């Protein structure tokens, strides 16, 4: 079973993951955002909504990261990144 998971790289790519799982340099296509209402709203008005893409520019060990969305950069706490799910974009 373990072998299957590691060898099947194509399947890995379309696997759902959170933004927190992304490394610096990776891009996530957002499919779902599940966060506290106020925070979800703040992301929404920045255009960080399902269907959009975010690119991870920098990431600290704590999970706090700098992302790019629609041409702007944001610092984002790990807590928030954990509630944003999607698939890795190429």
């Amino acid at each position: 079973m373990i072998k299957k998971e590691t060898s099947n790289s194509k399947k890995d790519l379309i696997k759902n993951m959170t933004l927190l799982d992304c490394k610096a340099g990776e891009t996530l296509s957002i499919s779902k955002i599940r966060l506290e209402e106020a925070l979800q709203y703040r992301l929404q008005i920045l255009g960080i909504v399902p269907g959009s893409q975010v690119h991870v520019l920098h990431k600290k060990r704590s999970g706090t990261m700098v992302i790019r969305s629609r041409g702007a950069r944001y610092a984002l706490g790990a807590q928030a990144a954990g509630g944003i799910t999607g698939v890795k974009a190429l």
Partner: protein
Amino acid sequence: MTIAFAGNPNCGKTTLFNAYTGASLKVANWPGVTVEKKEGTCTYKGERHTLVDLPGTYSLSSYTMEEKLTRQFLLSGGADVIIDVADASCLTRNLYLTIQLMELGIPVVLALNMMDILKKRGAKLDVHRLSQKLGIPVVPLSARRREGLDVLMDAALEAAKSKAVPAAAQFEQMEAQERFAWIEAAVAACLTDNRPRAFTDRVDNVLLHPFWGLLIFFAIMAVVFLLTFTLGDLAKIPLEAALDQLYSAVGQGLDAIHTAPWLTSLITDGILAGVGGILTFLPNIVLLFFALAFLEDSGYMARVAYIMDGIMGSLGMSGRAFIPMLLGFGCTVPAIMASRALESRRDRLRVMLVTPFMSCSARLPVYILIAGAFFGNYAPVAAFSMYVIGLLTAILIARCTKSLHKKEKQLPLLMELPDYKAPALRTVVLYVWEKVRDYLTRAGTTIFLASIVLWVLLNFGPGGFVTSMEDSFAAWIGRGAAFLLTPCGLGMWQIAVALIAGIAAKEVVVSSLAVLFGIENISSAAGTTALRASLAAYGFGAANAYALMVFVLLYIPCAAALATIRSESKSWLWTAGAAVMQIGVAWILSAVAYRIGCLFI
């Protein structure tokens, strides 16, 4: 005409607003809240117009105070026309607000700012096409270079006069996601080659580096600190000398016209010394805010939240709270003013509570005197331990107040990091001027009252005007209150009086002790020995001395600091609460220090 300026944070709205209004700026608060309201006037082609700078928001729904205020103001007919300022290099997100503004039924003109940067990058934006798509006038400009300002003003006045309400019916049924899709399509049709700015990314690779970024941050903070305090204190010397001359000149003048001694004392020792004390902080404040304005306008300040997120986050504070807390080691007054860099009011209030525990430079003379008198070779260790105790107390209080203001729950970090740019001198100068004016007017009025009260306490007694501090109300209170200080090992009326006098400024504790014990030249070796001998006569030993240092470290920093807390928090209740807490913490910890000290010595 009333013209409202709306737009996202960091879109250059304030730069544009300043370009029109210059220094005619009037800063007040929106009724009932602490969000700043900026108003200015501008005379254009012989007509005077009122300009209102609305708080920077990303949307107009009613989640945050800023959004609510903007919405209410515009809906209540506060403006004839809205100038929506948008950063051309981040158009999609900016246009989301544009559409919401268009739905209000007020004429809207879109000002596309930072066109110079867009051009430099080789991107082309079809302004006419964008204007057609949106159905509102669109004016390209550069606020920093002051290009396109007249065109924008013409367009805004034209729209206001013709009452051209934008057509926004098509957006009514759209959800946020659909709106963004619509905007994206519109932008794609107008903009070619929108590459992200590589310069900022390259700089960020260094400044946000996990190791180098932190190192550079500390280096920058060291420079800010040195600039504020070393250079500021240098500039203080001639200023203080000039003020001293003024006091003596006024004193002599009053004597010459045979003014009553008490009135001369009130004017020179009370009012002039108190208000003059406020002026001596000016060099520090100007330099500090110059540095902070530079960091803010260059785009670095926003990064501090990311860099310091981990360390300050464990205290439940934003990363930016590090700056005022560090500055607290120099002087509490500018440090508290620096708390304005924080995003939430909850954080600002907590920083004001914690910062005074950082041992400021005015406390050092007290440590030097007391530690020198009682701890001999260990004096530097005793003095240094004060800095550690102050820091630990600050951390403790920060942790204890973490859950304060439960309603304003702390949201996880989410903050825009703007592009780096060369700070505009005009913005920096206006920023500094605004803070200085604020400081002088707000802190100045409070300190005026405080210095009169302190003067009365120290110079008046039950029998009227007194020439010796021993007969004053302060001594009277000191005698009555001394027993309260007994658990701290400080149950002497002279100490109580010196502590009351120290509220004017901490270094006054030293001179008060000198006066009360009749010691000349207290900072000399002979003076220090004499102080120890006089105190020893009351059974005041090393443990008492250490408790005194702890008390001086932790109790009310000074009247000016309290006045600053009052003017920054805009709450007498909070100021009083802070003062009571400081005295309480000082009392408890100095009592603990005394008890522990007694075990060893």
